[in-house]
């Protein structure tokens, strides 16, 4: 096992397209690192550069203690799982698993041992003599995993390995992947465009956009402390609600005002976000997670200190365990380039209502016990401790440690 370090890695395609731009990333030994971002953000290119399938235009890639920039893939001691599995169709499962070992001139007994171990681990024992054409999608996916496992490499590279499976299988494979990583402890770099996969699998998640690294952090930190509007809008489903707002301070303390609402900002927020006080009296972009809302009735006494806001529910999506309430507020939608990018490429299917120019659509996630119905007025409470503030021009999160002094 080994760590993987990317130092200022660039990828410029013929024609001058910069797919990856000065990427700095350290993947620790044994870590499960997820690269996530909308399509075309350079995540697959980055992975393929680590694999050695793409040339590196600039910077260096270190695996273990070796600079591998000019090593061919076979000398990097890494294994890759492809999105479409890429099994050898004319070989049986057994031959598929053994191919890489045979090429390394491993003794036959050792090959058989490793193939059987991997087959056992993945539940493929009874399919060893079959050809890929006679396997289901999930089984093929496991063969592809097995082909990586038998090699016992320094690192696994996975390029959207679950995206060709149906939804239910994807969830169970996600769990087995997690188990597998626990068990083998091999450094893994995993590429996906699905932020749920990223959140559930990654020890740490690296968010990319247009070839630029946005933020690397644990899933929870990404969710709680996004560095900018793009990360805030991309991570989390349903995505974060944004609005232009004004930060004010008067006799009763600081507050943020938007669309006729006024939410007090607790003092602790100012302590957590250094520099926020400089924005008092100025326009900012306010972000509120749908999960920081609750139905005032359902929340009952639990929401002491939360602020109530009355809204009119336009649409409700009942998911069984919770209800998404879609409502409009009297403020123009935020059209920052970052929020637009995050919306377009997230695989969220936003319910689009015909909106006039001065209304924006928000989502609140409330308890399933709420009796809210479409067209009803409902009183929501907001957790004001989790408000997110962004600079109007730069889109950066105000007071985030990475942005202080920027």
């Amino acid at each position, binding site marked *: 096992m080994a760590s993987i370090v990317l130092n200022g890695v660039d990828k410029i395609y013929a024609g001058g397209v910069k797919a990856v731009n000065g990427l700095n990333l350290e993947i620790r030994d044994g870590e499960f690192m997820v690269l996530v971002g909308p399509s075309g953000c350079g995540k697959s290119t980055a992975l393929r550069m680590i*694999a050695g399938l793409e040339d590196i235009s600039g910077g260096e890639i270190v695996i273990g203690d070796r600079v591998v920039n000019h090593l061919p893939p076979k000398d990097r001691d890494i294994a890759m799982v492809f999105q479409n599995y*890429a099994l050898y169709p004319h070989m049986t499962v057994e031959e598929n698993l053994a191919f890489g070992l045979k090429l390394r001139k491993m003794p036959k007994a050792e090959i058989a041992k490793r193939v059987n171990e991997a087959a056992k681990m993945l539940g493929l024992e009874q399919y060893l003599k079959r050809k890929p054409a006679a396997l289901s999608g999930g089984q093929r996916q496991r063969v592809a995993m097995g082909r990586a496992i038998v090699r016992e490499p320094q690192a696994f590279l996975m390029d959207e390995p679950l995206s060709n499976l149906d939804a239910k299988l994807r969830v169970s494979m996600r769990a087995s992947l997690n188990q597998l990583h626990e068990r083998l402890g091999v450094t893994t770099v995993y590429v996906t465009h699905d932020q749920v996969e990223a959140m559930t699998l990654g020890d740490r998640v690296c968010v990319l956009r247009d070839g630029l690294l946005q933020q690397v952090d644990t899933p929870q930190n990404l969710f709680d402390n996004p560095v900018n509007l793009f990360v805030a809008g991309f991570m989390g489903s349903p995505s974060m609600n944004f609005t232009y707002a004004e930060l004010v301070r008067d006799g009763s303390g600081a507050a943020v005002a938007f669309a006729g609402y006024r939410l007090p900002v607790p003092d602790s927020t100012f302590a957590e976000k250094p520099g926020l006080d400089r924005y008092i009296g100025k326009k900012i972009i306010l972000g509120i997670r749908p999960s920081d809302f609750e139905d005032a009735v359902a929340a009952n006494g639990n929401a002491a200190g939360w602020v109530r806001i009355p809204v009119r529910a336009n649409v409700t999506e009942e998911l069984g365990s919770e209800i998404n309430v879609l409502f409009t507020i009297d403020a123009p939608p935020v059209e920052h380039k970052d929020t637009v990018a995050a919306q377009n490429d997230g695989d969220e299917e936003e319910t689009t209502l015909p909106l006039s120019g001065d209304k924006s659509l928000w989502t609140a996630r409330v308890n399933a016990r709420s009796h809210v119905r479409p067209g009803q007025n409902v009183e929501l409470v907001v957790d004001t401790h989790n408000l997110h503030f962004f600079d109007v021009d730069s889109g950066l999160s105000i007071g985030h440690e990475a942005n202080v002094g920027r």
Partner: protein
Amino acid sequence: MTTLTEPRHARAIERGFLARLVDRLGGGLIQVALVLIAVFWLVPTLGLLVVSLRGETENNSTGWWTLFSKPAQVTFENYGNLLASGFTSSFWNTVLITVPATVLVIGIAAMAAYAFAWIDFPGRDAVFLVVVALLVVPVQIALIPIAKMYGALDIFGSILGVVLFHVAFGLPFAIFLLRNFFVGIPRELLEAARMDGAPEWRIFATVVFPLAKPAIASLGIFQFLWVWNDLLVALVFADTANQPMTKALQSQMRQFGTNVDILAPGAFLSLIIPLVLFFAFQRYFVQGLLAGSVK
């Protein structure tokens, strides 16, 4: 097959007896028509076989179909005469020309096609365009310059010369065909092999070549038939000692007689080998070898 027939069967029951009858009749009629066409196509070949089995006098006096009413005419004398006449050496010449010309074309074209499809070398597309352009060069315009060159190289009239000519003119099409097939192989398959540690020639031999069997079998049959049936190149480049069957048969034509007792068995012999070969390889034409690889 069962999955295909079952729903059809169910539908037929739904549509009732008459509809089913029309279905059956329609299918039957089509099959009868197909068989008739096939038989019609086979008549000349059958005639050739029958003629080769009759003596010279019978062939000169009555039509070949009379054999069916008088089976006593059958004789293998013609074949005996043919073998005695030294025709066998021209048969072996044909084999010696055709087999290397086919094997070389497949081998060289497969490697060239792999490079054109998967290896990024400078000027690749330009070179490939030239190869495609060579497809339109007619054999005839090359006869005289190549003959002169063979004279200088002292291989004029030899089997080697004939083989080289066939290889040269078979390659453009072969490369074109195989390259287009190779390009259709998913890139990830080659990348997976590369990650598994396979060097380029190994990817070619153990991944790409086995997958390209259908294309290679088709190409092999084409090339084999072209060379086996060629007369023009043999006439120009092969001298009498090295002449293939086609040229030997052609030299049996007489101005005032048909010489049919030699021509018919010779022609039939030259026909039977490609047929056998075709049936031997036909299973590769229908196989979907890429099934199950990706997705």
